[in-house]
């Protein structure tokens, strides 16, 4: 009896907040999932169950210039090329130039695969059989080389970056018209939702790494400066407090083509004025610059709090051993800071996927200056829902956004899990 009372009291404490979470978070989450299977813009005014057709509509590709599989083949060859070169590079670092024989196989295979790129016409080798062959080779190779590589295991991100780098090289050597990337871009021209995914990823790829880099630098500076700490902290933090509409308005002025201060500063270095706000290719970078400015101080503060929590004794010990600043950063700060870095990565990633207001204000309620170049996923949801009144379609798009964020966060969790080192 007494125990049950205690439980009831516990639940009573939860009730107000829980009601709000249920009404405005859990129930909408279920409800919009349900909505995503309905067409709400019918002539009768009643929503009609349409199954998955909202999702199908979102990814409708239209007429493809060439079959998906062809693009896949080309991309796959490029990927293998990048992968093999990266593996070779990493195994080279691993053995530091010794035991060359052991690593000969990838070295022999590189030229062969490189030639396959110079002759981009795949039919030269008879199409699909060639792909199967590559699969087999790829499997053997991976198994053979990755088996013993500790260096690679501890530098997964670096490895992925290296693959990406060599992929780009391969892309520019070979036939650029046929590639998954090119195909995706071509589909995006006809499908505004795919365009919005494209733009959002483009934004995230620019925004997140630079934000993390600058805010880490800001955090380190705030920690290590002997004087005027508060001044710099205040300065870095100021942009975060301002409302994003006011901030976007301010940057609308800074980016102004004729009278903006940016083009004026560029003119000191002899750079001719850049049409920041009126160029489709610069839309997302422009928005990214603004967002980096707005948020770096906030993440910098989070980094600072992490840095303050690192035990000073480590540094003292390192100093006795004669470590320089760079070594102290690499072997003490960076590993011990990794939980914070991880937190900032997750938060800034989720934040970056929500980019909307900046575009809305900078481009006068339009998704970019032209060609939907500023159409982000949230903008797509807003537009489909608010302007076109297609609740079902908007919900489906929202769920895909949610899915992408979830998947990326999970990947981050998985890849960083092993490397996040916790304070002892």
């Amino acid at each position, binding site marked *: 009896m007494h125990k049950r009372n205690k439980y009831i009291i516990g639940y009573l404490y*939860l009730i107000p*907040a829980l009601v709000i979470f249920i*009404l405005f978070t859990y129930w909408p989450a279920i409800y919009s999932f349900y909505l995503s299977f309905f067409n709400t813009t019918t002539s009768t005014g009643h929503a009609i169950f349409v199954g998955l057709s909202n999702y199908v509509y979102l990814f409708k590709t239209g007429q493809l210039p060439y079959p998906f599989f062809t693009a896949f083949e080309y991309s796959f060859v490029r990927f293998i090329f990048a992968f093999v070169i990266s593996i070779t590079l990493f195994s080279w670092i691993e053995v530091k130039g010794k035991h060359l024989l052991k690593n000969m196989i990838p070295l022999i295979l590189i030229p062969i695969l490189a030639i396959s790129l110079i002759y981009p016409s795949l039919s030269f080798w008879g199409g699909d059989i060639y792909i199967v062959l590559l699969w087999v080779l790829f499997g053997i190779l991976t198994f053979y080389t990755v088996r013993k590589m500790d260096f690679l295991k501890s530098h997964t991100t670096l490895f992925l970056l290296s693959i990406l780098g060599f992929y780009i090289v391969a892309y520019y050597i070979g036939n650029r018209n046929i590639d998954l990337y090119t195909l995706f871009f071509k589909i995006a021209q006809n499908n505004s939702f795919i365009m919005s995914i494209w733009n959002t990823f483009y934004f995230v790829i620019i925004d997140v790494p630079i934000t993390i880099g600058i805010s880490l630098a800001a955090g380190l500076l705030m920690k290590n*400066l002997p004087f005027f700490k508060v001044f710099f902290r205040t300065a870095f933090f100021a942009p975060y407090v301002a409302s994003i*509409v006011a901030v976007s308005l301010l940057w609308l002025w800074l980016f102004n083509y004729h009278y903006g201060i940016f083009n004026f500063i560029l003119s000191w270095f002899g750079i001719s004025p850049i049409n920041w706000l009126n160029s489709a290719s610069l839309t997302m970078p422009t928005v990214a610059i603004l967002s980096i400015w707005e948020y770096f*101080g906030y993440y910098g503060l989070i980094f600072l709090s992490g840095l303050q929590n690192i035990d000073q004794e480590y540094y003292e010990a390192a100093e006795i051993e004669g470590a320089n600043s760079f070594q102290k950063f690499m072997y003490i700060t960076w590993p011990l800071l990794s939980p914070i870095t991880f937190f900032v990565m997750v938060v800034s990633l989720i934040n970056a996927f929500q980019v909307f207001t900046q575009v809305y204000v900078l481009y006068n309620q339009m998704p970019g200056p032209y060609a939907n170049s500023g159409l982000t996923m949230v903008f797509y949801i*807003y537009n489909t829902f608010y302007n076109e009144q297609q609740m079902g379609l908007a919900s489906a798009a929202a769920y895909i*956004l949610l899915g992408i964020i979830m998947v990326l966060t999970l990947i981050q969790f998985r890849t960083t899990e092993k490397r996040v080192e916790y304070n002892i």
Partner: protein
Amino acid sequence: MKRQKKKIVYFFYYVAAVILAIFAIGPIVWMVDTSFKTNSEVLSYPPSWGTINALPSRTLTADIIKTRAGQSSNPSALSLEALLGSLSTTQTTTLASPDTIAIHILGASGYRGTGTMPRRGTLIVSLIDDTGNPASYPTNFSTSDFNKVVNEISSISPLSNDVEQSISNLSQYTSSSQAYILNFYDDFLYGSNPIFSRINFISNLLNLVGNPFQDQLTSFKKGIGPLTDVELKAISQILGNALDLTTNPSTKMKISEYLNDIKLYLDFNQFYEGQKRTKIDQPIELAFIPKSNQLKIVKAPSIVQSAYTSGDQIYITFKNTSFVWFLNDNVSVKANYNFWEVLTNFFDNYVSAWNSAPFGIYYFNSIFVALATTILNIIFDVMMAFAFSKLTFPGRDKIFIAIIATMMIPYQVLIVANYLIIHSFGWINSYYALIIPWSATSFVIFLMRQSFNSIPNDLYDAAKIDGASSWRFLWTIAVPLSMPVIITGALLTFLGSWNSFLWVLIMTDTANMRTLPVGLQNFIINSGAIFNQLMAAATFTMIPVVIAFLFLQKYFVSGFFRSGIK
């Protein structure tokens, strides 16, 4: 040696920190700076830091309106009689208001573009002639002299077609010397297609006399405005030489026509200038009267009767004299402001921005919504966090994880369903829609739980033994102990609510429910690209919160340190 090295390292730290700080506050400083500028300063390149709005006096670029069209096109310049006159006769024969001079104020000198003059302070208007001396006017004008000159110039012949036509046209004005003079100068110098226009007139001469005088004549094409007396005299000298050289009789005829044109003009101009015998002995000092078109005459020569203003122009009415006597003159306008007027100039953009949209309502809404959200958040979040931290009941940790998981869901994802739910409650366009859904925040709950966890359970047990209920323990012991984190949470929710945009945009559709960000966005759309006013609006929506938060920022930091993310 080592210390030396450390100093260098610190030097680089400071360089980096200063660069980052400039990156962070530079834009804000530039925003505030721009918000004080005049229109013409905003649209000037290269940009400058200062603004004449801060100065007690400024020189305004101004022109006397000299054309017939300019005089008659402005109905506000007409006296009642003149207006009736203009209605009863044809336009061209009417002199709109012969006693009133119209001066067009272009804006601050030294800057490109037009700007409106602030309608306050005093204006010092000086009429000056070509040589920079004060302008003069006739005191006793004799009509018989005028008639004599008109007869004289009418008898000059042969004339070129244009001039001949103009003179025969002018003959209809002989009864009114003022109308004659205005139309004469309009035809010859200041009209839309004057006879002595620099380019056309010289081009005609070049076609006529050709090669030997090409260089001499071409040099007159340089310069602004119609040809001056001195230039015309020099041209007639050249034409005289050309007349001697040519043998072709038709060319000779043409040249002498042009020579007569110039002589006619110079004769008339000599008469006109000769009549002006009395100098204007002092500048005209005019003061703006608030909410009135009339200008107060502070100090002026006796011929000035009254003055008023309309748009970018000021009009000065004379006693016993006419503006036609100042056609060849220039005007310089200087504006003086006292301390309060300087202040008003300085904050002019703020006042006009504030008045052009209901920012008062937006401000109230923002403050009300943010405060209500924050208060509800503190109560609800503290309760929930306390339950998660100190109370035991089945499913506690599972519920906690479910709450924390909502941090991963961006609210934009749920906005469609939320709109429909709020719509079904009938809350669209109400404070409920802006406050209630935001009155519990999972991140704040997480922060507070961490903080409550650091309070020892023994303390709670001791309180229970002393007979305190959990409710009492929460508000009298736990909350005061976790104050820094609660303040952090309050600041985070306040800021989130204050800056919220998409939610407010969707949930409201009238001005009296909008908060500042949405109101500001509306202002941007409605006002166009007047960047000084836009920056003023951005400043007054941003600065109060920025300043408040800069003072409270230590709570942000300490909140993160104490409970934060370890």
